[in-house]
């Protein structure tokens, strides 16, 4: 029997789904299901298959399966949002929501209708952008800190005045102080960046730092943020991000910003 896999909800935009695409199972066509002044973006899936233990197990264990399905889900949502100059307000679903049939989906939409509308109002005219910061040159950063950090410099002066034997022990202590100060400075830089960009935004969310395994990069991620920004502020936000990127490169960091994304980070209710 055919169930319905739900990708996202959006404001009515009759006739607008940029391309015909296959759904999560690589078979069922993605289509629009109108409900009041909303549209649900769905595709048909075989219920038995998706309810099976095999699928549930794959979803926990099979990395390739997870990758394939997550990408398929994200692609449909992206497609439903539109591209270039037409961007529709939409609420992306978390992965893996399936309804037995149209009636069941409509029941839930009816029940949640007010909350859905509320979220759509909240994100109207706004875009989600994300910023990820990486530490590219650890040595360079540490060097910069050592050169200008007052606590470290003071300790060094103290040691310079000590007799040799004493200095040896103090140097061990200095190493600890240095690593503490570096950690503090790292936090300062990250917080500063976060706050600077926040000025352009309506809302912000700090997300988990992603491991190298996931990013596929040598450089460790040190900040991962999502911002919700008014459309008319996007240019300023981009400019500010570019400026900050120049600034932090001197300290051994770089940042990447991307958008507009479906508002995954700002549509919960």
């Amino acid at each position: 029997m055919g169930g319905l896999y739900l990708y996202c909800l959006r404001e009515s935009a009759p006739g607008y789904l940029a391309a015909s695409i296959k759904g999560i199972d690589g078979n069922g066509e993605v289509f629009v299901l109108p409900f009041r002044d909303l549209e649900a973006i769905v595709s048909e899936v075989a219920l038995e298959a998706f309810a099976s233990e095999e699928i549930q197990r794959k979803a926990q264990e099979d990395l390739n399966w997870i990758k394939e399905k997550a990408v398929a889900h994200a692609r449909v949502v992206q497609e439903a949002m539109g591209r270039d100059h037409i961007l529709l307000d939409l609420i992306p679903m978390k992965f893996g929501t399936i309804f037995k049939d149209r009636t069941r989906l409509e029941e839930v939409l009816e029940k949640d209708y007010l909350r859905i509308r509320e979220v759509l109002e909240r994100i109207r005219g706004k875009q989600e952008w994300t910023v990820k910061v990486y530490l590219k040159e650890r040595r360079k950063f540490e060097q910069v800190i050592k050169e200008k950090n007052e606590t470290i410099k003071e300790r060094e002066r103290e040691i310079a005045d000590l007799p040799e034997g004493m200095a040896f022990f103090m140097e061990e202590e200095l190493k600890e102080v240095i690593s503490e100060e570096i950690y503090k400075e790292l936090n300062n830089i990250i917080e500063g960046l976060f706050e600077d960009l926040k000025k352009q935004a309506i809302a912000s969310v700090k997300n988990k730092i992603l491991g190298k395994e996931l990013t596929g990069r040598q450089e460790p991620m040190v900040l991962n943020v999502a911002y919700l920004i008014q459309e008319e502020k996007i240019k300023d936000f981009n400019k500010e991000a570019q400026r900050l990127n120049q600034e932090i490169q001197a300290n051994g960091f770089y940042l990447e910003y991307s958008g507009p994304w479906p508002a995954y980070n700002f549509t919960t209710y």
Partner: protein
Amino acid sequence: MTTQKMMHATEATNLADILERVLDKGIVIAGDIKIQIADIDLLTIKIRLLVASVDKAMEMGINWWQSDSYLTSKPKEAELELENKMLKERLDRLETRIKAE
């Protein structure tokens, strides 16, 4: 400008970007069936294990999702099978020789 690191979500999406959204974000509404995907932390651990088990992939930057875990484990299995077969044959030969003596 080489320092400019700006991408449009529509054109440049890497897997990390997709996974962190689709797996950990988005609203949850009461469907009839819910497929529960491993969350991002568990996924990171799984990838780490996979990366650690495939020597070559230890060099970071190699994308785990491009190396099919089945494909990469197959050659090893085949190797083991072959070794097994050869040992059995050797054992058979030895046994026949002992019986003959």
